[in-house]
């Protein structure tokens, strides 16, 4: 297994709403091998995004373990210190959020190329790779030099996807990567995911689009809402 989560529990305590507790995940498990894509499904409110964020270490879980194979060693990101998790995110664990968090003044190309540089690519090579993947996702060369803050939602999401696919990831987490895309761009993203799988990436994702899910997922894990408010 490249990534394996077992017995995950997550409760949110909303102090500003009188301390109400939301039990979102209980005893959730999911795993993916190299070259395998696992889709998380379930009704709205079942905790799909929560689980995906937990797998990235963005949400702290209350119970369970999340083992990620990092540099050949299965490492529990729940117990790992901050520096280890940052290292895992730099080298092993990629994540595509639903929205791009644009940085003022930084161009689309620089956002994408910076990721490749972080992974050790030389700057000119990173810019070439960035321009290529952005071009493939239909971000024209004249747009690549502009900060994405002014782009449409679909264009921003394509920049976000380009940043994830500019270098290969051993494990890739995707939260609705095709949500704001038209059919042509959706097909390009499906092709990118298939190529990543062929290169041995373990993919876990949320895909509301059934055609996308059927094209890419080898397995489906269905979550049911825990639904109980203490």
């Amino acid at each position, binding site marked *: 297994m490249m990534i394996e989560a077992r017995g995950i529990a997550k409760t949110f305590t909303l102090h*500003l709403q009188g301390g109400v507790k939301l039990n979102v995940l209980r005893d959730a498990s999911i795993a993916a091998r190299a070259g395998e894509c696992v889709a998380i499904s379930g009704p709205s409110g079942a905790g799909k995004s929560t689980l995906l964020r937990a797998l990235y270490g963005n*949400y*702290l879980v209350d119970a369970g373990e999340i083992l990620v194979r990092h540099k050949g060693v299965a490492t529990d990101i729940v117990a790992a210190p901050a520096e280890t998790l*940052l290292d895992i995110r730099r080298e092993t664990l990629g994540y595509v959020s639903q929205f791009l968090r644009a940085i003022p003044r930084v161009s689309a190309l620089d956002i994408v190329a910076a990721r490749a540089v972080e992974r050790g690519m030389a700057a000119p090579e990173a810019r070439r790779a960035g321009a290529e993947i952005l071009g493939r996702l239909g971000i024209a060369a004249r747009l690549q030099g502009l900060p994405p803050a002014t782009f449409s939602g679909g264009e921003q999401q394509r920049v976000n996807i380009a940043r994830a696919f500019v270098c290969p990831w051993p494990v890739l987490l995707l939260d609705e990567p095709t949500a704001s895309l038209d059919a042509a761009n959706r097909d390009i993203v499906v092709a990118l995911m298939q190529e990543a799988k062929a290169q041995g990436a373990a993919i876990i994702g949320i895909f509301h689009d059934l055609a996308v899910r059927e094209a890419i997922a080898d397995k489906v894990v269905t979550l049911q809402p825990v639904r109980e408010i203490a």
Partner: protein
Amino acid sequence: MSILLQARGLQKTFGRIAALENVSMALRRHEILAIVGESGSGKTTLLNVLAGRLSADAGEVFYDGGDGLAPLSAIGEAGLRRLQRARWGFIQQDPRAALRLDVSAGGNIGERLMAGGGRHYGAIRETAAQWLAAVEISPGRLDDMPKTFSGGMLQRLQIAATLVTEPELVFMDEPTGGLDVSVQARILDLIRGLVRRLGVAVVIVTHDIGVARLLADRLIVMRHGRIVESGLTDQVLDDPHHEYTQLLVSSVLPA
């Protein structure tokens, strides 16, 4: 990465007000750590104690200058001064308080190089010009007095004058605090790029969560002189556990 700076059990009171209550933390090499909290939370006091500008009532700050962690108090007054001049930097909210306004821009940058032992006038001038360009000020302004600069330019000049010696550790106190929003983005972007390129470790105090999210690897949330929460920046901001952090995060107006 090894620990560069560490605080253990810091205690500081001003009159009857506890500014620091049993504060312990660590900073690793090349790491960017943000300290957030409201006014009066003790964040600036912590920064000043870490930087050796203020002494704690109890507890100790340790620094690893290459031979392992040693308490600042053991380095001595002169040693600390040398450290602050050569290997550390401090960027203040108000650049007017840090810069010498009656000395040219090039002089302000060159001063720190000379304090570090630089003697060759031509080389110092050359380096100063490069650093002006690095902070997006025309090198043609090298001989101009800072009093002719705008607030944003002054802050960029302070950044150049601090980073010119390529310090390994820089403390920042609300570096974008006094600036227009349009100018803030530019300064933040500059800091982000320069700090990553030089591999500087940074402790930055800010009340602006957006600044922390943009710059910091890790985050410390302070309230009433105590650390109430800490962790990876995105984790603390997206999944805040402490009541006060939840309030802080939910109080931000979406852009």
